[in-house]
């Protein structure tokens, strides 16, 4: 991802923050917006960083700064980090704690027990739910205007991409560590379908992220194979599987294409992954209308 796009996004986000902050008191009706919010989960981190007013978000999870899983790791450098521990929450005494339903049940339970409000986000694995998540986070943070704009932009971009698609669709396979592929009911599958691809792992009957046999990857010869770019990571044997020499014989386009962690969370940034793959799709199999444009 280019730095230019990042900074543009940041600028945009900053501009909206100011507008949102000015308008926030008017959007009353509900309770007053919390002034000190703590996010314990990588995915709520992304939503909160995109929407919170300056100073409103007191800390994000340490994972948000990890460039191998967090697409917003640059922004996360501007926030203090927590490690999802109840003790950290007690010390900070925030007005609101944000976390996911997947993890940290014990922490959530403890924090609720001492009377600090906790909001849990359940991340359903489709793109369609994302505008709803953005609006919910906007309500919680008292940033409704900003959330509304972000959610509307998201829906518009997504619909525009989906409207452009045509048959026949090229095939795609995400081949990750140890040959694991996201199949049905994953956010990646939703991203692939929106960008106009057929996800081979889902068609092969994989549900969730599951191992996709290397032999099948060769036999099916997908048009695109998405691997992860992890050059600067500590070594693992699993990272060698997507580099297996057998894959070099295929005609498939094999590349990382996307920054790490692009579909880890259903935050607003996932639309960048959809756009990127939609461009790739038009490049390898242009739709007629698209080609004449």
């Amino acid at each position, binding site marked *: 991802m280019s730095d230019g796009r990042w900074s543009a996004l940041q600028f945009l986000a900053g501009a909206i923050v100011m507008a949102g902050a000015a308008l926030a008191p008017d959007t009353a009706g509900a309770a007053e917006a919390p002034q000190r919010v703590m996010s314990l989960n990588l995915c709520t981190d992304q939503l909160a960083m995109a929407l919170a007013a300056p100073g409103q978000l007191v800390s994000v999870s340490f994972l948000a700064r990890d460039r191998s899983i967090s697409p917003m790791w640059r922004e996360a450098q501007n926030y203090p980090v927590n490690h999802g521990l109840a003790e950290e929450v007690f010390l900070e005494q925030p007005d609101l704690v944000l976390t996911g339903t997947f993890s940290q049940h014990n922490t959530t339970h403890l924090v609720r027990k001492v009377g600090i409000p906790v909001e849990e986000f359940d991340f359903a694995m489709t793109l369609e739910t994302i505008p709803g998540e953005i609006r919910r986070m906007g309500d919680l943070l008292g940033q409704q205007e900003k959330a509304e704009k972000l959610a509307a932009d998201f829906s518009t971009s997504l619909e525009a991409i989906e409207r452009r698609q045509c048959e026949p669709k090229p095939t795609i396979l995400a081949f990750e560590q140890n040959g694991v592929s996201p199949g049905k009911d994953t956010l990646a599958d939703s991203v692939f379908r929106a960008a106009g691809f057929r996800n081979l792992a889902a068609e092969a009957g994989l549900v969730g992220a599951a191992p996709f*046999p290397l032999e099948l990857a060769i036999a099916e010869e997908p048009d695109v194979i998405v691997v992860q770019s992890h050059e600067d990571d500590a*070594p693992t044997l699993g990272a060698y599987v997507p580099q297996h020499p*057998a894959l070099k014989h295929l005609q498939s386009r094999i590349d990382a294409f996307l920054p790490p962690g692009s579909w880890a969370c259903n935050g607003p940034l996932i639309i960048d992954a959809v756009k990127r793959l939609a461009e790739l799709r038009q490049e390898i199999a242009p739709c007629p209308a698209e080609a004449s444009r």
Partner: protein
Amino acid sequence: MKPAALNLGLLGLVVLFFLVSLAVGSAGLGITDSITGIIAGGSDVGGIIMREIRLPRAILALAIGFTLGMSGAVLQGFLRNPLAEPGLIGVSGMASLGAVILFYLGLAGNTLYALPAGALLGALIAVALLLALAARSSSTLTLILAGVALSSLAGALTSLVLNLSPNPFASYEIIFWLLGSLKDRSMEHVWLALPLMITGWLLIALSGRTINALSLGEEAAASLGISLPRARAMIVLGVALGVGAATAVAGGIGFVGLVVPHLLRPFTDGVPNRLLLPSGLGGGALLLAADTVCRVVLPAGELNVGVVTALIGAPFFLWLVVRTRREAA
């Protein structure tokens, strides 16, 4: 049974299991596709799957099984101890540990060559330690207890190193290093391990005369002009090279070296030397079969091959312990 007949029979078994191993996989290729795929070359799908995925896997299963079977036979002969086996006495565990330390901590950079280097070092330390111990006390119990301690320690340290790795995926590989697998290996792995394993086989084969003489007792062996230190060095190096290389590419696979020599000993005339080649072939056949079972039982996820060998080997081990006790009593 005549040695030649036994070896030919086992060779037939190896060839059969090798072909079955080539024919089994998630992409449904027939036997004829498989064979033409290998011979014809070409870049069609069948050819790529055969040459790049199934052939290296079958070669590795054969070579690693051969190494483990032969190492078990030579250790049992040399230590005059029926329970000696690379997995059980901690050689495989220490080889895993060495490989894990060099590879995951990035001490040798992000390269596959760190694996055999580390595994060799670990295996060497383990075999040398055990032989030093065995030289002082010839008790079966001492050796096995030391082996168990070494195995557990190596297993714990392997898990620790993998948990310490900054890469969150590394800890998922604990199961590979403890249970072994041949999944998705490539020709790179074959070239990495095969030369070392062959060198190990040669060293072990050269020490055959020594273990024959040793079956008469150490003094008798010395009076026959056998140099024990030299023989010991050759066996240590041979086993460490073979098991180290095997572990570097397939993780720790247990029990093959234990079961195979025992199964085949009744078919030989009791001369330890004549058990080496049959044990190698038998080990190859067993590991080829076990690896095929892994792919058939759980086609998508795949079992770890160490699970299958342990399912065969552990009950056998118990039976062996009971029998040894009865004989001792």
